[in-house]
């Protein structure tokens, strides 16, 4: 347990080195919310600003949780991973620590945006708050696991960045982060609409919406279904990603 705490400390210190990058990310999120969403609200027949606010929290969480992959890819390229493997830390502690750190960094980064969302939409009851944070934690650790698996599987930074780009575009834009499921179902082909329904970012954003305000859609999955989707995503990618990470490191 102590070793996992060391790894958490190590990864949080690394995260703080990116403080300017984080400031840049925050400004992009704020521009999306306070410029783009405010204008779009005047162009659609529902309160887009309220709708989008949970969406921007989830995208911020995803982007910051995914950042651990950038560091892991650097470690693989510079053979720093050999040093990590030589430390008196068990393999499972190493993967658990890194994945947990990636997830917690995501939560930490998105927390101010989550509070902004609460300030705009109203504060949830304590049990709802815990449910939201728990759901976001599942999303963040799953994202970190996914990112770690991709990062460890290639020594090429370009390939990592390209894979990250494809994932970002598909997960962000084929989800209910930017638009309600009704609109997606009415326009996109069935496979893409299904992808949007199962997308973990959709589950995260819709869960916050469902708990904070009457979400304007007739096709919203139940809370149980949203949590189930998040749990499945988190389980597959936290454990799958961790397993892949350690196997790939040992093989290199």
């Amino acid at each position, binding site marked *: 347990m102590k070793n996992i705490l060391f790894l958490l400390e190590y990864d949080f210190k690394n995260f703080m080195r990116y403080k*300017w*990058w984080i*400031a*840049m*990310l925050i*400004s*992009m999120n*704020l*521009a*999306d919310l306070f*410029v*783009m969403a*405010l*204008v*779009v609200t*005047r*162009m*659609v*027949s529902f309160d887009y600003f309220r709708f989008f606010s949970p969406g921007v929290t989830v995208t911020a969480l995803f982007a910051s949780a995914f950042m651990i992959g950038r560091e892991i890819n650097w470690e693989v390229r510079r053979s720093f991973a050999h040093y990590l493997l030589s430390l008196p830390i068990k393999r499972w502690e190493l993967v658990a620590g890194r994945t947990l750190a990636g997830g917690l960094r995501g939560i930490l980064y998105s927390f101010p945006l989550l509070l902004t969302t609460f300030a705009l939409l109203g504060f949830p009851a304590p049990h709802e708050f815990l449910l939201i944070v728990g759901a976001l934690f599942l999303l963040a650790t799953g994202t970190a696991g996914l990112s770690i698996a991709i990062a460890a599987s290639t020594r090429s930074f*370009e*390939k990592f*960045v*390209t894979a990250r*780009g*494809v994932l970002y*575009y*598909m997960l962000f*834009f*084929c989800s209910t982060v*930017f*638009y*309600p499921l009704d*609109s*997606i179902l*009415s*326009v*996109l082909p069935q496979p*893409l609409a299904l992808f949007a329904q199962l997308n973990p970012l959709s589950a995260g954003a819709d869960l916050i919406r469902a708990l904070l305000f009457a979400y304007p859609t007739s096709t919203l999955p139940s809370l149980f279904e949203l949590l189930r989707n998040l749990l499945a995503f988190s389980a597959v990618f936290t454990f799958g990603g961790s397993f892949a990470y350690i196997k790939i490191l040992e093989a290199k």
Partner: protein
Amino acid sequence: MTKLWLVVERDVRMFLRYRFILIMRAMWFAVQISLFGLVVSSMIKAEVHNIVGSYFNYYAAGVGIMMLYSTAMFIGYDIFEEAEHGIIEYLLSLPISRKELVLGRAIGGGIRSFVYIGPMLAIVLFMIGVIHPLNFLVAFASLFLFAFGVSGFSITLASAIKSHDKYDIFMGMFNAFVVRLSTAMYPKAFMPDLYANLAQLNPITFASDIFRWGAGLESVLTTSPFIAVIGLFVFFFTFTFLGVTIYERRIEGGGWE
């Protein structure tokens, strides 16, 4: 002139090395059009369609301009790459004047953006259709001014800041707001007054509006073509020649971070 052309040619060639970034940008374009543009269009009130015609066409034209902007901006990153690898000193040792060097770079940055986004603009035009070819030619020429101006702006900033990290951060924050505070994504009629006033002075607004005018989307015009062309010319002139002056003064003496 030959020396100027050599600088332009070098920058165009260098750009083709960034194949992963080019692939990513092309994917961003495809996603913006086929997912975001399509779904958001379906959400838009009839009132908006009455003003802008098809919002999808409106947005597709804006995405083309956003691509042109971000691609032309890229030259600033090249300058830092060169500083990091000591290539700036090599460039300074060449029998090319500083003016030719920076002018060549601004033009090269603009041309390579056009080479890259040409097929994407063609797709956008295929979707929208071109009604007035003459208007389109005027618009196309104005977009060259825009692309050269953006490259000049990027060079000016890179030379003035001289720090890769600070430049990267500043550009990230700046781009986040400058693109959203323009008519690239939505018409001025739906912006709050403050945003609309800022958008009115934004070169991306000039470029988006003149491109839509050239493509025959006159119904959505918020800036007169004359004002847009003048605005783009002033933008081009300011940043190309400001870029020349600052680049000339700052390029020597090291200090790149």
